[in-house]
């Protein structure tokens, strides 16, 4: 049957007794049709169930079914898990599972020296090697010498394992990912039962396929045991992480944003209206909410991005909590309507799952390059609050906050996530809804003017106007995008009115600062030599890099900002307490510019725009350079 090729010393393949492993990074890579995201997702679940902390990074091509075996059709899923706190998907993998030559070629250079390659030789035929631009098999030319290689015919082993079920060749080979998962589960001593339950549920109507997949899973697992006996492979036990007691689950950013919006609407005592248009990587929010009707959710798949936001504004106007979501190109289309929501002062939540840009850019890759768009990207003086989530779990609280600010200040609020946060999963301590302070909305029921007249644009102490639902007797009035009288809201182009209203709109948003917490130092001292200021999904690598460099004795602190606009009241003073300020961002320096503008602080940029998250090492190196 299969011939195992094994070479090299150390690492995960054993040979020597390895020290207890604190954290391991595994990357599953294969053809986009090989089911790598599924494999990764299930491995994530079993890892979470084993009590490890974890972070994942799904990385897949924009094409739904890219031509088989090609370099650009490679889909990968990386998971970092361990017995201590995990904040990133990990820099370099310890283990690479390569299901074909293209997957090996595109991923092997990221592997740690001495890392383990598990490859399916069944796919390393002449045709696939050519497609991956290999002239000779990498197993034969010595190009893989610095790594451990465990290459054997997974395809043949899978076919053998599922033979009793009489599947066609194509269907039988589809079980390969479960075979591989079985091996991975053995390697890290994971329980197979949840997987079996999942397969039985997934193939409820096709029990034969469930059985075949379980057989493949078991076969992969058994192979691990056998291979251990015969030599190169070792099993690893990774102790559960010490974390706060409580109930946990895994959550992706798209899930937690959806749940946070539902929670936010409940806290506001409002039905939720979600108008969306399909776009990567934001669609998952629409998918999730479409299944939550019992929570008073109405979802509307609009004809385009503009209609999506327009319908949400219409719903807000009619008294529901309107929400729309998109990614950069869609947000660009929504710009004029956002301006109308600002002008008519209606609550609205806009979620932007950022991706690489400009234009169509990198639909499936992550970037943080829509910050200018969020803060400044509209015609006229059109301020709105902007909040950025730092991780999948954090996105829940951010979504609740976005809802709160929107209804309390009668304003659209932009919530920034990104492709990484939307797709990545991490353990999440399930929050208790009762621990959140409700912010119930009250609609205007009677005329509110001093002389018994209706003033739709009178303001409360926060600068917010009343919310008036059509259908309320006696409060008929007209609103629109034209400049208006500060009280009645009637059309009024006069110089005084425009000055007053522009000032009022700005003051209202500036005033949001009074309802948000002061900026805390995330890690380290409140003053010193160097502050690393970040926002959004760079939290993980920054946190780990600051942690590591602090262990080395460097004077560095992490300040991670959630409230991008308005900025926390104390942030300027906080930054002035540091000799240097470094701002790592997955863009060309957008938040850096905002900080410089707001505080005249000499913030320095650290930028990356490759569509991949920062590695810890990159930020560590920048910290060391800044303090050298």
């Amino acid at each position, binding site marked *: 049957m299969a011939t195992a090729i094994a070479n090299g010393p150390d690492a995960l393949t054993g040979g020597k007794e390895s020290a207890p492993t604190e954290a391991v990074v595994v990357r599953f890579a294969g053809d986009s049709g090989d089911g790598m995201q599924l494999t990764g997702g299930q491995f994530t679940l079993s890892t979470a169930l084993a009590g490890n902390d974890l972070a994942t990074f799904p990385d897949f091509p924009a094409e739904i079914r890219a031509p088989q075996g090609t370099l650009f059709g490679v889909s990968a899923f990386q998971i970092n898990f361990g017995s201590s706190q995990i904040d990133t998907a990990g820099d370099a993998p310890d283990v690479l599972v390569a299901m074909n030559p293209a997957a090996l070629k595109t991923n092997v250079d990221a592997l740690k020296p001495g890392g383990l390659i598990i490859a399916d030789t069944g796919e390393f035929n002449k045709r696939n090697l050519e497609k991956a631009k290999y002239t000779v098999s990498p197993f034969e030319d010595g190009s893989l010498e610095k790594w451990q290689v465990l290459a054997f015919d997974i395809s043949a082993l899978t076919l053998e394992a599922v033979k009793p079920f009489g599947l066609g060749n194509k269907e039988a080979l589809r079980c390969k990912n479960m075979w591989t998962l079985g091996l991975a589960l053995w390697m890290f001593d994971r329980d197979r039962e949840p997987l079996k339950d999942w397969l039985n549920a997934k193939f409820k109507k096709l029990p034969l396929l469930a059985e075949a997949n379980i057989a493949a899973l078991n076969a992969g697992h058994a192979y691990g045991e056998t291979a251990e006996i015969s030599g190169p492979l070792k099993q690893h036990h990774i102790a559960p992480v010490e974390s706060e*007691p409580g109930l946990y689950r895994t959550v992706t950013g798209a899930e937690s944003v959806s749940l946070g919006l539902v929670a936010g609407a409940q806290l506001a005592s409002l039905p939720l209206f979600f108008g969306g248009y399909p776009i990567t990587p934001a669609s998952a929010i629409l998918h999730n909410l479409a299944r939550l009707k019992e929570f008073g959710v109405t979802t509307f798949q609009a*004809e385009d991005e503009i209609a999506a936001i327009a319908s949400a504004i219409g719903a807000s106007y*009619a008294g529901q909590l309107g929400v729309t979501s998109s990614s950069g190109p869609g947000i660009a289309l929504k710009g004029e309507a956002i301006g109308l929501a600002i002008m008519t002062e209606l609550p609205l939540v806009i979620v932007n799952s950022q991706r690489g840009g400009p234009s169509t850019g990198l639909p499936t890759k992550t970037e943080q390059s829509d910050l200018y768009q969020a803060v400044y990207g509209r015609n006229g003086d059109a301020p709105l609050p902007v909040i950025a989530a730092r991780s999948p779990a954090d996105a829940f609280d951010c979504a609740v906050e976005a809802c709160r600010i929107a209804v309390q200040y009668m304003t659209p609020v932009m919530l920034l996530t990104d492709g990484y946060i939307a797709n990545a999963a991490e353990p999440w301590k399930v929050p208790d809804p009762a621990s959140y302070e409700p912010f119930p909305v009250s609609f205007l029921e009677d005329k509110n003017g001093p002389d018994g007249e209706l003033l739709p644009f009178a303001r409360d102490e926060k600068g917010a106007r009343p919310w008036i639902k059509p259908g309320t007797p006696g409060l008929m009035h007209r609103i629109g995008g034209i400049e208006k009288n500060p009280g009645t809201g*009637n059309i009024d182009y006069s110089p005084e009115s425009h000055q007053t209203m522009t000032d009022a709109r700005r003051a209202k948003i500036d005033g949001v600062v009074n309802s948000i917490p002061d900026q805390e130092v995330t890690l380290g001292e409140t003053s010193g030599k160097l502050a690393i200021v970040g926002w959004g999904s760079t939290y993980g690598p920054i946190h780990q890099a600051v942690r590591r460099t602090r262990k080395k004795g460097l004077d560095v602190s992490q300040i991670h900002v959630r409230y991008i606009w308005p900025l926390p009241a104390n942030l300027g003073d906080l930054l002035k307490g540091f000799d240097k300020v470094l701002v790592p961002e997955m863009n060309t320096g957008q938040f850096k510019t905002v900080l410089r503008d707001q505080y005249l602080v000499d913030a320095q940029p650290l930028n990356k725009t490759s569509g991949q998250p920062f590695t810890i090492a990159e930020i560590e190196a920048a910290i060391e350079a800044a303090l050298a």
Partner: protein
Amino acid sequence: MNDMTPIAKVQTTMKDWETDQEVRWCPGCGDYAILKAVQRTLPELGADPAKTVFVSGIGCSSRFPYYVESYGFHTIHGRAPAFATGIKLANPELDVWLVTGDGDGMSIGGNHTMHIIRRNVNVQILLFNNEIYGLTKGQYSPTSRLGTNSPTSPLGSVDRPASPCAFALGSGARFIARAYDVSKELSGVLKAAHAHKGASFVEIFQNCIVYNKDVFAEFTEKANANTGQLWLQDGQPMLFNKGTQGITLDLETLSLKVVEVIDGDWKAAGVIVHNVKNRAIAHMLVEMPFGPFPMALGVIYDDPRPTYETTVLEQDAKAREGKSANLAALLAKGQTWTVSGTAADPI
């Protein structure tokens, strides 16, 4: 299918529907007549100002909501249908009128016009067609006739005009009607549009006296009314010119034809009887070229289907059946695990 409980009728007068805002259309603009017709019709419908919402886009016609004493939302260019859809989904009890123009509804907002019609949202869509951009000072519009001279087409426009009613029907409309600004039948057409449950599409020819004066005079002028206007009525023969002419269906070419009616014997002349549920004839009527034919006016097509919001709400209600909105349970859904013991900060 239970399509919305009827809204309780409210007693109002025409005056009750006027706002304190100065109407700012050009003197002599056809919009005044349409506004009056609407304000005259609303009391007759028993409409409740508190439950009525006028939604508009951008353009001369879209100023309309400011002048009607109800709820009003003047939105952005071309997107009024999408706002209206959100309003109706959030509160289907609101009686929504959508006011748009040929530029707003057929050009920048053509996409949304199509989708609100195909979804069949229960609103009245009034498209004021003046075949010109008025508010931006006279550029040709998507309904301007070939050769229209305008600041952007000094040598005459060369793009072929779109037909709003044909577009609406092609988008799946279940109600199509036509009228013109000063016609006394406009009120009746508005009532029919209001009575129809679903998206009612009404094209109103409107005279822009500044940039496209008298462009419809060939059939709206008194002298031309007899030969130029075919007023359709359900169950009545398609007669015009005081009953001396009519429309028949040429069975050889499967097209409409004008025939002479002798001594009122329209049956002998083969004049067809208007049936508002006949979609095929509706297609022919909206495509009927003016000139060789009179302009088809009145209710051209009226055959209701369940409305979008009713269907959505029914589906949502079904999805909610037997489920409770337990947020704590939702958050803890899926595979979970419990961590016990003391908290430890790993940093």
